[in-house]
């Protein structure tokens, strides 16, 4: 049974026959649900970009701060961008916010899903460089706990993996494989999670107090309960930087290899990936520091979890467009 078909059945099996057809016509498939989640995160980003902090000098300072530690070829454009933003703060930030708002709306609006996903890839790559300093992956400051390799690059990766097209003639073993094929999707997953493991073992991250300081610092400006949570978590890893980094790296390597395992084992590693993403999001990223009024996005935690869901093994994921495109769907959804 195809994923789409099963989704339709899941929706409809409790309904009467008349409603079943209705539900099957309107129910999005798994890939569409993931696309919608991505759209929601873009929309959230757009709204967050309208916060007062983003219209202050703090925003341009935040951008220029990402140049620090990067090679000159990478840092110079960032510094230029920060200066440009500082001089045209209101105009540029409004444009940034509106673009992200439109990306979310565009992905959610079926006829424009392809255009919006393509635009989101270009936008994400630009922000990754000019706004996030390539996620600091070229510096010693990159850590999976604080958002490396940069949340925004995960948007681009998801846009590629959730592209509304299907490779003909084969059944994809998981949603992320539908557009690019299983070997490429698995390779991308492997590279991502192995890179996270690598970052976890960087000298700056395995220092005795590195993880403690990183987590403890997240409590600043947060609500009391979250600050207390961060303090508690930080105390658990105090002076345990090396051990914590090694454990985290091992877990990340297991996750990286998980997509090559048989489905039951793969599911287990994906659950581990989601747990790691949740822990990182709560303790390492403090929900993207949204509650301080200075968060531009929810950071990498939700994106990593979303990515894991895209790799969830299906019994069989249909690739034939005719089976996945409900009547009346726009061209953008014809194969999604």
């Amino acid at each position, binding site marked *: 049974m195809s994923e789409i078909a099963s989704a339709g059945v899941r929706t409809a099996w409790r309904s009467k026959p008349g409603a079943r057809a209705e539900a099957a016509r309107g129910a999005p498939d798994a890939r569409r649900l993931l696309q919608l989640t991505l759209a929601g995160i873009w929309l959230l980003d757009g709204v967050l970009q309208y916060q007062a902090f983003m219209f*202050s000098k703090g925003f341009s300072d935040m951008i220029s701060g990402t140049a620090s530690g990067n090679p000159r070829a990478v840092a110079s454009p960032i510094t230029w961008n920060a200066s440009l933003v500082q001089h045209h703060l209101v105009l540029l930030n*409004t444009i940034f916010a509106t673009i992200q708002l439109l990306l979310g709306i565009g992905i959610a609006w079926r006829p424009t899903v392809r255009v919006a996903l393509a635009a989101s890839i270009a936008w994400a790559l630009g922000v990754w460089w000019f706004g996030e300093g390539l996620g600091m992956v070229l510096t010693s400051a990159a850590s999976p706990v604080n958002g490396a390799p940069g949340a925004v690059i995960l948007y681009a990766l998801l846009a590629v993996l959730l592209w509304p097209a299907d490779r003909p003639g084969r059944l994809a073993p998981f949603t992320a494989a539908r557009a690019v094929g299983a070997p490429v999707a698995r390779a991308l997953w492997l590279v991502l999670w192995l890179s996270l493991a690598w970052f976890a073992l960087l000298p700056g991250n395995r220092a005795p107090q590195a993880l403690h300081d990183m987590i403890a610092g997240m409590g600043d400006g947060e609500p009391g309960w979250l600050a207390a949570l961060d303090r508690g978590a930080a105390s658990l890893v105090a002076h345990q930087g090396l051990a914590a980094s090694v454990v985290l790296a091992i877990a990340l390597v297991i996750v990286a290899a998980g997509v090559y395992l048989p489905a039951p084992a793969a599911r287990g590693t994906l659950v581990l990936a989601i747990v790691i993403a949740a822990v990182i999001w709560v303790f390492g990223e403090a929900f993207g520091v949204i509650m301080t009024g200075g968060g531009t996005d929810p950071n990498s935690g939700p994106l990593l979890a979303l990515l894991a869901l895209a790799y969830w093994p299906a019994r069989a994921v249909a690739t034939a467009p005719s089976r996945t495109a409900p009547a009346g769907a726009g061209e953008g959804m014809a194969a999604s």
Partner: protein
Amino acid sequence: MIPSWILDIFAAIMLVVAAVSAARLVAARPWQRGARRAALADIDVAHLLMAIAMAGTLASGLRTLPDGAWEVVFGVMTAWFAYRVARDAQVSGVRALAGGHCAPHLLHAGAMLYMFVAVSAPAAHGSGGMGGMGGGLSGMGTLELPFLALLFALALVGYSIWDLDQLSGPGTSGHYSLATARVAPTGAVLAGVGATAGSGATAGLGAAVVSGPAPVAAGLAEARQVPPASAPADGTGVLAPWVATGCRIAMGVTMAFMLLIMI
């Protein structure tokens, strides 16, 4: 500090929503259709009131009622939609909570109530770069329990995205239809609510009056089987289904915007 013209744009959008909702009410003339049908106008009434309140919060020049009055209004509205959701749940089970017609409106009303109840003076919260926010927001201030604001914002964004998908997807003129649902279910639903609640009838009020996510489509088919007797030209012009859904999307995004900038 958020430029006031950005807030004015959002306020203008809310005024458009209010005008459209008022036009829908006038065009539908629910007061001429008896109490039961008039009750189905609750969505447009809710949209109208919420849009006016939001416009007044975004732009001080558009302020109409004192905050205390809005708290009462949205308290009543929240209770009303909670009642409607509970009724839906009796017929449709948890599906009514997850994707029923009234669930998103309950969320909207609850978010508005929270916004008015939890707001505090800017000076009481002001921190760092947010210090100037209160002035820019025409005295909106900041919200207590910011995690709740985040949860509301996430849910509002989620519903808005879902609405956009359903509006642009298959069956737009069918199950995802406010206008159809406002009229078509009168036979099946209103009779069902009055006479067959608890008897296993699936054409319950919430399940049939559909503007929400796909799961609620269950039950609508039954409602559609009943001819929309005496239905006027609902479903066209300002009464077109997408108009009300569009209003809901605009309000959801604006509400999420307001919640997040008030954190």
